[in-house]
């Protein structure tokens, strides 16, 4: 590797890293400002250009001027977790069926069923939200965690199926056959022989589920009233005509913290080499 190329390479990497980090840095800076730190124009250096305060952070942890984020955080965590588990379970089962068996219902074949699953992602959320409202009202599940879990499953299931079909296609089917020859029923073969070998695939699917579940704002916002608030809602509740940018920044940083840990976790799998085969 020539020195010129190395310089070029590290320059590019650094530029992009700067672009990635910039917004976070700005959010961090802003979270320690107050109205006076924001009004005059852009300031960068704490103590020098503005007097740092903890107001923003106090406001999200029970300060009267903000919105409490702890309960929404827990709500988001529960909804994301439960919906992800259900989606992964149902999605992995369906994906396994689609990977191993041929389905033919009229003119509908496997690829059409897979397309049906994936096509749910094409559906703009706006289409679904009004009928979902009536659906959940009918089931008496508006403003409840189970209601949101059901809706979130509809969002996540297609992702789980998409990732897992590809993954199972990559596992030799002789393994399930052998398990059945060894005395497992079809379900046993799936559970005992395939699932234990699907950890990388499930990891990727779980990551996508977590990202899309955690970050859903649209449905949570419209299908809840006062009891259940999710984290994105808590942040958006600060988007007033006079946005308290410091509180908004603190809430934003707090809200994204768990998923940043997720990025670290995914990278570990990448580096260990367990994931690469999964995402093809």
């Amino acid at each position: 590797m020539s020195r010129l190329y190395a310089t070029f390479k590290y320059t590019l990497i650094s530029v992009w890293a700067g672009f990635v980090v910039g917004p976070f840095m700005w959010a961090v800076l802003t979270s320690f400002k107050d109205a006076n730190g924001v009004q005059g124009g852009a300031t960068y250096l704490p103590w020098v250009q503005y007097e740092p305060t903890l107001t923003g952070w106090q406001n999200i942890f029970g300060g009267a001027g903000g919105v409490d984020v702890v309960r929404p955080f827990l709500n988001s965590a529960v909804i994301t977790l439960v919906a992800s588990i259900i989606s992964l379970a149902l999605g992995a089962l369906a994906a396994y069926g689609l990977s191993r068996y041929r389905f033919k219902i009229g003119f509908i074949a496997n690829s059409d069923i897979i397309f049906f699953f994936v096509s749910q992602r094409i559906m703009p959320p706006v289409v679904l939200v009004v009928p979902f409202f009536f659906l959940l009202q009918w089931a008496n599940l508006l403003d409840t965690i189970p209601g949101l879990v059901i809706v979130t499953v509809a969002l996540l299931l297609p992702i789980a199926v998409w990732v897992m079909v590809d993954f199972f296609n990559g596992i030799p089917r002789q393994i399930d056959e052998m398990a059945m020859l060894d005395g497992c029923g079809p379900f046993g073969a799936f559970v005992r022989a395939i699932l234990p070998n699907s950890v990388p695939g499930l990891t990727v699917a779980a990551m996508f589920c977590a990202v899309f579940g955690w970050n859903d704002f649209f449905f949570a916002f419209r299908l809840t009233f006062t009891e259940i608030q999710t984290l994105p809602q808590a942040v958006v509740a600060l988007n007033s005509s006079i946005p308290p940018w410091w509180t908004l920044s603190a809430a934003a940083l707090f809200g994204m913290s768990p998923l940043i840990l997720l990025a670290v976790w995914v990278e570990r799998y990448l580096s260990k080499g367990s994931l690469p085969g999964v995402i093809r």
Partner: protein
Amino acid sequence: MNRKQLTKSLAVPVAVLAITVAGCSGSSGPEQKPDKPALFKPGSEISYAKYGKDYPTTKVKDVPGPCSYESISRKDYSGQTLKIISHAVPVIGEPTQLHARQFEEITGAKVEVVNVPFGELHQKILTPLQAGQPAYDVMFYPSLWIGDMAPYLVPVPKEYLDAPGMKDVTKAYLGVATWNGKVVQYPVDGDRHYLKIRTDVLADRKHQAAYLAATGKQLRAPQTWAEYQEIASFFGGKDVDGDGKPNFGSAEVTKRDDLVFSAFISRAAPYVKHPDVTGGVFFDVTTMQPLINTPGFVRALEDMVKAKSTWPAGGANFGLGDEIFSFGGGQALMSYSWDDAFIQAQQTDSRIRNRVAAAPLPGSAEVYNRNTRTWDKIQNQAPYFTWGWTSAVAKTARNQKMAFDYLCFFSNEANTALDLTIGRFGVNPYRNAHFDPGFWQAQGWSKDVATAYVNTLSGMEKSTNRVFDLRVPGVNEYMSSLANGVAAALAGQQTPQQALDAVAKEWTEITDRVGKDRVQEAYRNVVALEDNS
């Protein structure tokens, strides 16, 4: 253990379980607990200081009455939940949260508050109401939605109407809260648009002389929109207040999905509200023909497009918050909208405290007469009573008494006195008591500033040539359509005439969709207020 004892010991948990289940199912209805001893003595000192250093240390006295700290703290609402929807934090959202916390502290109730951005509030409130879903007990929303909300609201009970605080609400704002003869909204805010100027520039001798030399005119608070434009252009882009940063002539709310429609109506009011013409400003109330594309409105939009040159960077996409920061932060020299920017400028830590003044909205030298289809050359003023925040209790509320107690507590004299001084709360004068310069001087305002402020506000109350919001069912659609038209013209996508013609066409469609009779009936109420009949 004999059999009897056994039965007994089993029965107790079963009974407990049954009670719990009944409690959970909510079918038992609100239980009214007897009063408890008051936590406050009459006339105790009230301060928000303990809630954080964001709050002023000002202390006020609890004013005796049914809504006072003392009276409300007698109520025992323990074990009950009050569900509230309000605007995003901080505007009206923060006082909602704050008073909810206080209400919890003194009554034992559990209060759940959800804060929603402005653009979402309407559907977030209306969807469950229409679906019959008991989502919220108390709702805070812009008062102009009364036409959509009224069917789902509980009229304010007499005992609250008779409270001294309510009796003191000005006639105009009680009118705003009334629908078909019943007070269905609980007034918590009184809003209007007025002009805000920087006196350290506009009343400065040096600047006045320079202005006179350049234009041959006196520099003063602009009396017409043409004058506003002239002054704004003259000072625009220069550092005239000596803070090292350029100043700009005007800051206005121009963002489409924010409140641009209100700003536009303020600009249009003197062109379209002819003192001698009755029967509606937005529609001809007899035919329900939209008037939004008549020459008066078109001229106002042309003015607004011209004014772009006097706005600061980003001024063509200012939300209310931007406008507040721009004027309140000392960047823009003039502004017109709600009180917030003015209060922001008057905050204790503000650079431009007491260097500002309030004045009536600019008028015009001529006004369009839609009966004669001519421009009449008369000096015209037309204050715009644009919407303010209001609150109401839903018919589906489980404990209406608790809900009204919360609202009456929210707006009790002590709370309101404190709320009025916190700019970001968005709570503005709506009681006669607030129109007293002494009240504001007590907050550290200079006498001139306080007097001009109070005179401006009460002058609006006294005017007979006023414009009110289009308080009809579907108002959001009308205003959204208007905002689209104004935004298209400001963005240069269409000429003002084209844009407003399109709006007029959409308005006709909306009227047909909502039902001409319903809109007309509602609009008659507005016109009656305007025509002072």
